[in-house]
C-alpha cells in the first residue's frame, strides 16, 4: 500500500513544474518509488504522468508514458 500518494495541484507544491505547463499530477515520495516502483509506474501508465518528490517537496523524477497514440510527426 502506498501511503503517501496524494493528488495535488502542482502549483501548490512544485512551481517549477506548473511553470512548465503541468497543472496536475500524482505525487509520490522517493520511498514510494523505491519500495513500490510497479505501482508508481502503473499509475503513470494509466494517467500519463507521475511525479516523485524528495523530502523537501521538490520534484526528483517525472515519469511520462503516453496514454493514447500520438500523431507521427514529419520532418
Amino acid at each position: 500500500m502506498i501511503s503517501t500518494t496524494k493528488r495535488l495541484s502542482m502549483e501548490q507544491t512544485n512551481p517549477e513544474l506548473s511553470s512548465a505547463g503541468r497543472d496536475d499530477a500524482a505525487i509520490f515520495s522517493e520511498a514510494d518509488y523505491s519500495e513500490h516502483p510497479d505501482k508508481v509506474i502503473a499509475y503513470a501508465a494509466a494517467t500519463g504522468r507521475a511525479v516523485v518528490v524528495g523530502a523537501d517537496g521538490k520534484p526528483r523524477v517525472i515519469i511520462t508514458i503516453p496514454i493514447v497514440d500520438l500523431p507521427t510527426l514529419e520532418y
Partner: protein
Amino acid sequence: MGGGPDAHFRLWLRAGLTGCEFARLLAGKHGSVAVELHVDVAPPAAWLNNVFDAHARAGHVVIAVFPSIATEAAVVDLLTVLQANPRWSLRRGLKTSPLGGVLIGLEWITGSGDTSEVMGFAPFPTMPVPRRSPYVALATWPGGRSNPFRGTGSTPPARPGVVSFLDAPHGLGYDAYEGRWKATSERVTELMSIPPDDARLYRRATFVLTPEQAAGLALDH
C-alpha cells in the same frame, strides 16, 4: 504531455531527428516508451536497477533523461557511478570515430540475466548526429526477446544472452516492419554522409567521448 525536458526529448524522437523510424513510432505509441526525467541529480545505480526492472515487467522501453548533466566530465562521473554496481559495466570500442572519439559501451544486466546494450544520447559534438540529442539520456529495452522478426529480413540476428532495442515489441506486421528498417537505414546513412561517418561504428557504443575525458574511465580494452 507538458512542456518540460521530458516532453522535449519525446518530441525530438517523434520528429524523426534520430533517423530511426522505430524511435519515431514507438515514442508516440500509447504505453510503449516511458521517459524518466531526473530533474536535478542522477540517481544511484541501485535505484535505476529497481525501476528498470519494474519497467521491464510493464513492457516499457525506458529512457532516463538527465538535463542537469551537461558536460562530458559529468557523463564520465555518471558512468563511473554506474560501473561500481555489479549490474553495470563499461567497454571500450576497438575503433575510434572519424573525429578520434573513444567509443564507450555501457551494458546493463536485466532481471532475467541477459546483457542489455544501453543506447546513449548527448548534446556533444563527439556524438554521432543521430544521437546528438537535446539532453544526456540513457535508453534501454529492459525486457527479453519480444520482437518476432528479430533476425529476419534486414534485422541483425540475435546474439545469445544479449538484448537491445532490436528486441523491443513494436506491434508491426512484417511488411511495415521491414519498410521501417529500410527507411531507417536510408535516413541514417543520409544523416551521416556530411561529414562522412559510418553508423556501424556506433552499434554497440553508448557514448562517444574525447580521449581526454575517456581517460577518466576504468575501461576494459
